[in-house]
């Protein structure tokens, strides 16, 4: 087996960021184990030659294009299964996201292939790929290798970095695809609908979370101002939700929501374990608390010991100035 086939999701004429990360990763790995770094695209007329060839900028050497309905997994399973069988690819690779999980899972069944999901890193070992997957709430990482002809690797969201675009170009190959009967029995009625102004904290990239250290319900005003300046959303700990300072929909933690934003700024949160399990996968954790012994400083990337009432307003102003808000 050789070669890596990466699925590249697109929408309204642009590729998905996680897909570009996966294409970059596929190119890197293909160099190490040898074989083609190819990409699969499935969709309609917006998949122009130029758009497809642009995946070459991220290291793909070949792009397979199939015409089929967009936004659903099963047509892509048909397309990838055909390419893998016809061209003999050894691995199918997906960036994070729901469709990748569905397509990868479908391929598992179709090709009797091994699958690893929530993968955070992939390494080459003796000409084969080994997937690293965190388990048990990220308290351990298992190395998984594949048995048989094909291995399927489904990344965790943001696991694979997008490479700096180069000037490569990819050969675009059209695939003549015959969909399985069941693959056209799910039909997209409406795609990508944006609902309401209500921010879902699970989707926010930047979160400002408030805790008991804010002192009073009105303290959340400071969090809202800062979140507004950052372009993020406001979350809250159970203690303040229980106390009625903030709505339950914003609650982080063991009995609330689990979040993994790019920035988690904890304001007045001591950081008990119940809270930690809800946010520990955040990429960057900043904590501001006046108690230097607060447990949150043990797992924050930047800790600030100080008074929120002094720091937050000035920080909001400074962020506004930087972002031109």
């Amino acid at each position, binding site marked *: 087996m050789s070669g890596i086939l990466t699925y590249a999701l697109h929408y309204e004429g642009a590729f998905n960021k996680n897909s570009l990360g996966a294409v970059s990763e596929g190119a890197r790995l293909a160099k190490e184990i040898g074989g083609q770094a190819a990409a699969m695209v499935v969709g309609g007329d917006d998949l122009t030659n130029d758009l497809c060839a642009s995946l070459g900028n991220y290291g793909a050497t070949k792009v397979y294009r199939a015409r089929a309905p967009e936004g659903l997994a099963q047509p892509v399973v048909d397309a990838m299964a055909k390419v893998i069988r016809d061209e003999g690819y050894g691995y199918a690779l997906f960036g994070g996201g729901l469709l990748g999980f569905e397509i990868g899972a479908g391929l598992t069944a179709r090709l009797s292939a091994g699958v690893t999901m929530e993968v955070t890193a992939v390494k080459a070992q003796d000409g084969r790929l080994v997937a690293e997957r965190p388990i048990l709430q990220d308290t351990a990482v298992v190395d998984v290798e594949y048995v048989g002809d094909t291995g399927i690797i489904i990344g965790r969201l943001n696991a694979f970095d997008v490479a700096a675009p180069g000037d490569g170009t990819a050969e675009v190959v059209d695939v003549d695809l015959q969909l399985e009967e069941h693959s056209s029995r799910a039909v997209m009625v409406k795609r990508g609908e944006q609902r309401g102004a209500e921010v879902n904290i699970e989707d926010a990239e930047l979160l400002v979370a408030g805790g008991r250290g804010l002192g*009073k319900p009105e303290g959340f005003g400071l969090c809202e101002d800062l979140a507004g300046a950052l372009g993020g959303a406001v979350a809250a700990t159970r203690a303040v*939700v229980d106390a009625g300072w903030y709505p339950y929909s914003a609650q982080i933690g*063991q009995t609330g929501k689990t979040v993994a934003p790019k920035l988690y700024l904890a304001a007045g949160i001591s950081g*008990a*374990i119940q809270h930690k399990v809800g946010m520990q996968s955040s990429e960057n954790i900043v904590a501001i608390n006046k108690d230097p012994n607060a*447990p949150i400083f043990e797992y924050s990337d930047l800790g600030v010991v100080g008074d929120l009432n002094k720091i937050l307003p000035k920080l909001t102003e400074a962020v506004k100035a930087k972002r031109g808000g």
Partner: protein
Amino acid sequence: MTTAPVDFAPRVDSAKEFVGRPTDSEEERIEVGVVIVGGGPAGLACAIRLSQLLEDQPELGESLGEVPVALVEKGKGPGSHLLSGAMMRPSAMRKLFPDLPEEEWPTYGTVERDRVYLMTKRRAVPLVPTPPPFRNHGNHVTSVAQLGRFLSEKAEEAGVYILGETAAAKLLVEDGVTVGVRTGDKGRGRSGEELGNFEPGSDLIGKATVLAEGSQGHLSGAAIRHFDIGSGDPMQWELGVKEVWEVAKPLDRIIHTLGWPLKLGSRYREFGGSWLYPMGEDKVSLGFVAGLDYRDARFSAHDALQLFKQHPLVREILADGKRVAWGAKTIPSGGYWAIPEQLSAPGLCIAGDSAGMVNVPQLKGIHYAMHAGMFAAEAIVDALKKGDARDLSGYDRRVRESEIAADIYRSRNMRQPFSKGFFFGGAVANAMEMSGGRFPGGHWKTHDDATVDVFIGKARKYPKPDGKLTFDKLSSVFATGNATRDDAPNHIRLREKVPLELALMWQNMCPAQVYEVPEDELEAASEGSGEPDGKRLVKLQVTPSNCVQCGAITAKGGRLTPPEGGDGPNYQLT
């Protein structure tokens, strides 16, 4: 300022609120043979013994219908809410499972060596020889959470219906006879409103009912009051906080300690001690127990255990280890005089910790609970054979003629003198042990823990949690697997505006961080002097979903009511 918690007790008339007539229509009622409340050693031993006796008398079994024995348990399952030291005397297991070899018991076997140490901050002075109450030759180390699961399996194999996640909310009494229990509602919101998935409780009707609810039984206290069968002496409680550790090297002896870090003077009245028991080769059970008649609002049993672990003796035992479980529970410690005058009422038996069947100086209760459960089963079958399960006085007779009554009577005056300070109490307890219980004679009254005045002592130096050896309360609660719904109704009754000393006492007492005095309230209450003076009432912040249902609040001026079934901890190893 000092304040007695009882002066701020919430108005709960338990006999009125938790005892009533069935309300479901005849068709809706669920009829079973015998209703048992509580999946602990008492309830499960009762269920198993009933099944054994009914197997010998098939016609009687059949007359009880499709479900001869049903047991309700408010935790996720039997064991979920069980916690004890525990050293278990083998007599009850032998009686219940005569053909089961001891090696197959759910225990960690027996331990030859035992030691008692008198602790100071840095030293541990062994008491040689080991005082008689602390000798544990032939007793088994066990985890009662595991024992509960074992007994539950045995009970299910014997055909008992085990109904987990089911609280008993009301004792059903008709014309002076107990006819069963009403189970708790599920799916109520924070203010008691019915949520979309609301499911009302059911009337579970039986020919006899056994209350085996454990310490601070929700219905047992109400039943004792309703039937007026109390002894006249109030029950007293101790609070035990326990951890289980995986350790690098096996512990070779059973350890009990007295003294540090408790304050022994009569001003503080801190009565208690600790244990360290080996659980096989790789685990150690350790815990700390303190009488809830202590006085200083700054005392925290949870944090005292954390401090205790820093003692060189304990540190060495736990070296390179890892905490794998935590929990807390009250222990009824009123002893003989506080045990109800009658243990049965028409159609009803009360068994185990619900009835205060604990031998305090010897730290034993599991086998009494199991014996009592079995006696209840025997008395119920006897009565059913006569065609009438209303008269269950046969249960009282069996208990009074058994080792339960004999042992507990021997130590009847042992706990009370400790209210005068540790050393005095120690002298009396020793004398009592030496004299086989003849001295001191007479009847030393017990007192209600909530009547003891509380004051705010000097700040205590409890360790800052390091997450390795020492832990904060929320980490401890997390370790119990407690996943109580955040929007469940508050099951704790107490006054939320109380003098500062009470508020602080609750905050420190509760091992699960349910009660907190908000900082601004604390500041306002300490206005001027810098030291709180207790004149102003403070408003508590209460987080009921942290509650591990240890029961301490019921002893100290509040009251737990039946929570939604399935709430609270899910103990595995405690």
